[in-house]
């Protein structure tokens, strides 16, 4: 009985792994073609669901575009040709890695500019703090009294300590 239940449970666990195989079964001539297909589908954005790539998306248009990529690979088109085909129709937005050009300078350079800016502000802040301490090198009379008090205390404690030590 226990064995039966266990085997049922186990077969349920592998069920999902067995079933969907038929859905996007593209058959490729070579493993290299399949690799290219996977790479392209991962790098192109699904226009309908925007934050998914074509590979992950189940939208109707994504399926059509995957079919299109498959067909183009079968027809012997190069990766650049396929990407150019997509960009000509949907614009740079289909690319998860946007090209470097005037409109995208901000995107590419922005983070570094912010980093450098942060660094500059940090250096200025630290320098100014050091300078504040240096500039007011003179102690006020109040501070001097406190300092002398502390020193005296320490001296007394030191001498009494020595005595005890003997």
């Amino acid at each position: 009985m226990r064995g039966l239940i266990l085997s049922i449970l186990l077969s349920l666990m592998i069920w999902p792994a067995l079933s969907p195989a038929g859905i996007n079964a593209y058959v490729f001539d070579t493993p290299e073609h399949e690799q290219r297909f996977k790479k392209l589908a991962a790098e192109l954005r699904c226009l309908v669901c925007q934050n998914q790539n074509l590979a992950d998306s189940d939208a109707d248009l994504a399926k059509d575009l995957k079919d299109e990529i498959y067909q183009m690979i079968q027809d012997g088109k190069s990766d650049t040709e396929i990407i150019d085909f997509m960009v000509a129709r949907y614009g740079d937005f289909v690319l998860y890695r946007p090209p470097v050009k005037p409109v995208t300078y901000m995107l590419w350079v922005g983070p570094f500019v912010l980093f450098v800016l942060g660094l500059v502000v940090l250096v200025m802040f630290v320098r100014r703090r050091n300078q504040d301490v240096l500039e007011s090198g003179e102690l006020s009379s109040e501070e001097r009294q406190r300092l002398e008090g502390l020193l005296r205390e320490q001296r007394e404690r030191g001498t009494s300590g020595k005595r005890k030590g003997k």
Partner: protein
Amino acid sequence: MKARFLIPLVVFLSLVGLFMVGLKLDPREVPSPLIDKPAPSFSLPDLHDESKTVSTEDFKKHKVSLFNVWASWCVACRQEHPLLVELSRQDVVPIYGLNYKDKRSDALNWLNRLGNPYTASAFDEKGRVGIDWGVYGVPETFVVDGKGIIRYKQIGPITEEAWQETILPLIEKIRAEEG
């Protein structure tokens, strides 16, 4: 010294400004690379009569025309449909349709029920022409001039606002250009 206390305020206000601009932007509107380019050529069977074809040549018959991508399964198409019907009734501008990934019978039923504003509808069953035109969200409407150049693309339904403020002025401008 006083100015330093204003820095957080300035930073805060500029952030608010950025967010306000951001709220108005629609990330679904992807600028089309096809604007001011020749319309991707196609030749498809007419939805109503398989023996006829609708093609890019049809745009050259008019100074300016609309090319509206629609489908019977598309909910937002229903929203803009009354406006299209009204435009065709008043004969403002010829409207060509691209019936996108639809069943012929469903599409014909839909037009019978809601009215047919189209001069002609091309039947793009597989959506292949849709891909060439960079269609990703139906409805979409292109303004095509008499030389077959795409001048504007409306993504999503044509709203009253988009019509009055953008599309109609553009149509008038193109008519004036072509004399």
